[in-house]
């Protein structure tokens, strides 16, 4: 069912970026995504929600997909489409790092007391909860991860 909403709508533009691993590269990519979304019919609040999703995914790739210190580039794509029911946005990342399926991560244990709650491991859980659809595949030695979110309009 991947990409259904975006492919069925009226194309509102696509953004394709190459991102490096440095924090400055990641920040620049996130700024570009937020700016692009602002120009494709999402509200400021919606663009910020998707920036958060993008931050979690992209930061994780930049930090963890390759051994520390190894330079690498990966691809980030954002596609938007106007649907009858709202604005659909799809974010896709493609990297040739270590195989990693973000959809296969365990959710955090919400019932743990403060002392026990882990400091990490929340990013991919936020991604899952803040998007409508997630899809992962490993192909041609690359991780392909897509998330999709439809923002309803009256």
């Amino acid at each position: 069912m991947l990409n259904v909403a975006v492919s069925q709508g009226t194309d509102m533009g696509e953004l394709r970026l190459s991102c490096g691993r440095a924090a400055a590269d990641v920040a620049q990519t996130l700024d570009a995504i937020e700016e692009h979304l602002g120009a494709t019919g999402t509200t400021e609040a919606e663009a910020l929600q998707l920036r958060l999703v993008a931050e979690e995914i992209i930061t994780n790739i930049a930090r963890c997909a390759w051994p520390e210190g190894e330079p690498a580039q990966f691809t980030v794509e954002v596609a938007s489409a106007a649907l009858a029911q709202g604005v659909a946005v799809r974010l896709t990342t493609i990297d040739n790092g270590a195989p990693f399926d973000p959809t296969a991560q365990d959710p955090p244990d919400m019932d743990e007391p403060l002392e026990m709650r882990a400091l990490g491991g929340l990013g991919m859980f936020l991604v899952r909860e803040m998007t409508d659809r997630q899809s992962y595949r490993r192909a041609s030695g690359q991780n392909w991860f897509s998330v999709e979110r439809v923002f309803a309009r009256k």
Partner: protein
Amino acid sequence: MDVTIETKGEVLVQRLHGRLDTLTSPQAEGTLTAEVKRGKRVAFDMNAVAYVSSAGLRVVLMAAKLAKSSAGAMVLFGLQPAVREVFAISGFDRVVTIREDEPAALAALAA
């Protein structure tokens, strides 16, 4: 991320301005944990924070843990709806004390 500090009796109010994300959290970590680490009673004013990612949640959780282990106390107030949602999704609203506004936060810290 800028943080200004006000003293209100026994309580410190740390007012955060800006985004708490991957880029700003490493620096914010020092500022936001310094007082709770010393056992102070601290209220974090979140009114001017429009964005908190998992990197920011991590700093908040760290501050809450330090407050507890140092016999201090920590309360957040003035969370914007989008930020509040991130706290709810992550379940942090169950382990961190959150109040609507400053008077409620100060009251919680006085209790």
